[in-house]
């Protein structure tokens, strides 16, 4: 594996040279101050340059180019990231152009996931802007012949505050060049209270392109002489190709076939003709008989479980159990869930003999670049990955096998090649949200206080498992994360799915809490509030209750009110919902969802609300319907006819509340508002009809089965 993360000085300047201009501004000697900087640390940070020039370039026309390895998949960071830069650099947001996800132009980045774009990358970007502004002030002091202390900045200009007509623009100072000058010490970032651009809704930058059809996704890239490839796939995971007869396919005019062992691709200038060619291949596979299917999977997974890790603990479980007057022990399940973005994976690759350029729908362009270089025996600088718009991803576009497939074919054929997966391929190769099991044993004393919380989660992962309620004796143990268990435990690939692990953990925790509240004869909201000290959690719960109009009553009340809350990506979030359950059919109609969120400083309130609405709507799917069915490695759901995702007719009334928390730096926004959707619907069903559903999704059959237990 070659790494592109550590970049030499020479490589770095070469990269900046790609951007044009490139005469280093006015300093003869190399500024050693940059290299005295402490390198950034950690998996997410170590590869990110410390030179502010990597993040921005100021044109002679005073337009600012912002470079980020982040990608736009609908979450809106194309619009919010420039707000951060404009804020710290004192320029108009309209003066900022953003260049995203291009490995030749943008600073290294681990990938767009984990709701990190603002809270993690955003900090590096702001630091870069602060230093750039400091350097510009030094340059301006020389130019204006004024002491630096007298200079002020506004809208991309620096002026002498005692004589405002004496001014110079950033662009006049840089002339579009790299600024080879640094500060001894990084000035402090703007205090959160001084924000002027952050915290305001700004219109989406991608709007015009997306409503006029000019927005380009990877599959929309058209290169001269491009061939569309279709690849022979196994009918089931674990199936082995025995033989393939391509003779009939070869008769199609203009069809090209590439055979490399198990890898057989047909290519044509029209994708539909390539598809016909693929259909003519007569292939035989040896298919595995594992007996593992969507019904036996939980037994299979529990047969031998991964090494446990303790997420949090306190007190002593034995004591907690002794002190309990009532102990409830329950097991919760959730099925595999697909990402199912509307855009299936696509990539276009072009190899000119030296450089391989790949346009790919991926959340991790730099990782894809390294993967392709490693697999195709190219050096890292021979591979450039460009990321056009992504048509949704939700964690599912991280592995990016399609990019490697396109690259491999383009390199071999020396022709531009597009690989665009069919919907069936998209389902088959999806890195599903793992099936998971949660076992909870919890207890309350005679006063209705929780004394015990013995929590074991299998295969979902760590996120959201830590305890935040005041329970004297508790232990949360995580048996296997979503990463690294695909081959050994799961029958196919699993991976991160929007707020990985947290949906499972929050569902189980909130359902169990309501069963406890019911035993205690307490209102579910009051029960939670009585076990909480964390201000932020108290605040979001109270805000949700106020918006919802929650009236305390013990559950099940017949009202169909549900409640859930949790922490994700540094953000606190609380949910309330109202459902109607049809006892005859078992179907559930979610009528209303309220979601209150504390995400620290909000960069773009409109964008944040949009993400919350999206999370809530998407979350209805895994709560009520989404489940991947399979048998012996074969996927039984390969399109939207049998795999149902939420549609317009599912729409509840959605109300979002974003709490003001101006003293906390921006936290995650793309995922938190989905984590409680399983829990809020489950507790609402329970409240409506007294039926506790212990498996997601809560299909009509499962609701009916639960009703029979009441």
């Amino acid at each position, binding site marked *: 594996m070659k790494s592109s993360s550590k970049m030499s000085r020479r490589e770095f300047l070469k990269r900046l040279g790609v951007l044009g201009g490139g005469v280093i501004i006015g300093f003869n000697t190399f500024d050693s101050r940059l290299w005295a900087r402490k390198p950034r640390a950690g998996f997410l940070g170590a590869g990110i340059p410390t030179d502010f020039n990597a993040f921005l370039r100021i044109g002679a026309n005073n337009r600012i180019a912002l470079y980020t390895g982040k990608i736009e*998949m*609908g*979450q*809106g960071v194309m619009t919010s990231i420039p707000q951060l830069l404009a804020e710290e650099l004192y320029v108009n947001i309209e003066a900022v152009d953003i260049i995203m996800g291009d490995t030749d132009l943008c600073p290294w980045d681990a990938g767009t996931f984990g709701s990190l774009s603002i809270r993690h990358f955003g900090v590096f970007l702001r630091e870069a802007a602060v230093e750039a502004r400091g350097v510009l002030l030094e340059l301006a002091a020389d130019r204006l012949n004024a002491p630096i202390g007298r200079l002020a900045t506004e809208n991309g200009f620096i002026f002498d505050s005692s004589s405002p007509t004496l001014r110079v623009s950033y662009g006049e100072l840089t002339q579009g060049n790299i600024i080879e000058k640094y500060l001894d010490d990084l000035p402090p970032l703007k205090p959160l209270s001084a924000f002027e651009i952050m915290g305001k809704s700004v*219109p*989406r930058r*991608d*709007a*015009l*392109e*997306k*409503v*006029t*059809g*000019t*927005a*380009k*996704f990877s*599959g*929309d890239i*058209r290169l001269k002489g491009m061939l*569309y490839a279709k690849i022979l796939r196994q009918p089931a995971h674990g199936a082995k190709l025995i033989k393939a007869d391509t003779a009939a396919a070869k008769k199609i005019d203009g069809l090209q076939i590439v055979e490399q062992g198990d890898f057989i691709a047909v290519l044509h*200038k*029209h*994708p*539909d*003709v390539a598809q016909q060619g693929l259909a003519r291949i007569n292939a035989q596979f040896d298919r595995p008989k594992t007996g593992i299917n969507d019904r036996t999977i939980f037994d299979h997974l529990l047969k031998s479980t991964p090494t446990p890790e303790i997420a949090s603990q306190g007190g002593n479980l034995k004591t907690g159990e002794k002190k309990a007057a009532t102990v409830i022990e329950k097991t919760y399940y959730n099925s595999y869930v697909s990402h*199912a*973005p*509307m*855009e*299936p994976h696509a990539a276009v690759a072009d190899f000119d003999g030296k450089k391989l350029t790949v346009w790919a729908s991926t959340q991790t362009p730099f990782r894809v670049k390294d993967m392709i270089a490693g697999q195709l025996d190219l050096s890292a600088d021979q591979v450039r990955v460009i990321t056009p*718009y*992504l*048509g*949704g*991803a*939700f964690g599912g576009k991280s592995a990016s096998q399609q990019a490697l497939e396109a690259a491999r074919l383009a390199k071999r054929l020396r022709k531009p090649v597009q690989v*665009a997966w*069919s*919907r069936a391929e998209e389902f088959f190769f999806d890195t599903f949200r793992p099936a998971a099991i949660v076992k909870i044993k919890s207890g309350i004393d005679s006063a209705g206080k929780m004394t015990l919380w013995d929590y074991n989660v299998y295969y979902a992962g760590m996120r959201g498992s830590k305890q935040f309620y005041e329970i004297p004796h508790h232990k949360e143990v995580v048996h296997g994360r979503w990463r690294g268990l695909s081959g050994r435990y799961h029958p196919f690939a699993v991976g991160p799915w929007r707020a990985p692990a947290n949906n499972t953990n929050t569902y189980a925790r909130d359902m169990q809490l309501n069963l406890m509240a019911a035993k205690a004869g307490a209102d579910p909201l009051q029960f939670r509030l009585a076990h909480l000290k964390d201000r932020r959690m108290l605040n979001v719960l109270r805000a949700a209750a106020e918006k919802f109009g929650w009236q305390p009553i013990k559950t099940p009340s017949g009202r169909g009110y549900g409640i859930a809350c949790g922490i994700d990506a540094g953000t606190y979030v609380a949910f309330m919902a109202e459902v109607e359950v049809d006892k005859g059919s078992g179907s559930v109609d979610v009528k209303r969802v309220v979601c209150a969120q504390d995400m620290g400083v909000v960069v773009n309130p*409109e964008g944040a609300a*949009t993400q919350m*609405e*999206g*999370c*809530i*709507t*998407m979350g209805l799917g895994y709560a009520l319907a989404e489940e991947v069915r399979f048998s012996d490695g074969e996927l039984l759901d390969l*399109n*939207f*006819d049998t795999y149902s*995702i*939420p*549609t*317009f*007719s599912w*729409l509840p009334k*959605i109300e979002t509340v974003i709490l003001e928390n101006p003293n906390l730096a921006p936290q995650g926004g793309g995922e938190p508002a989905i984590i409680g959707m399983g829990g809020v619907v489950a507790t609402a069903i329970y409240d409506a009809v007294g039926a506790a559903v212990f498996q997601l999704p809560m299909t009509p059959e499962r609701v009916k089965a639960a009703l029979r237990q009441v």
Partner: protein
Amino acid sequence: MLETIRFKLNGRPVRLEVNGERTLLWVLRTDLGVTGPKYGCGEGLCGACTVLADNEAVLSCQITIKDIAGSEITTIEGLAQNGKLHPLQQAFVEHAGFQCGYCTPGMILKAYSLLADNPTPSRQDIIDGMDENLCRCGAHTRIVAAIETASRRMKGGMK
């Protein structure tokens, strides 16, 4: 079997020598380089490939090029007139009636067809009319609001 197919695409006459059995979606996307209509499912289940045939929404992945001979086809690229956004496009911008944008061309054209049939739809009419167009990002509430706004502004007219 190559045949000559004539139709109008976004107001311009098109003449193709093409196998008439080929799917409209792929002829548009590859032969004609019109990439607004998207592939989402290939089986008429998601609506991402929606285009207008004589002002009516059709699923371009489900019809052949022969089927639309002589028709007037409008894709998302042809909706704005003289650089001016159609009221639906404008309303989608204002309400942020999209996130990733992949389903957006299909959504807008489906809504166009809906408003052509029923210029003053109720909220429920919109929900029913749009129900077969899938959006995974969860922009639904904003899409409904955008269609309501556009319908109000268009007052029954299509421009």
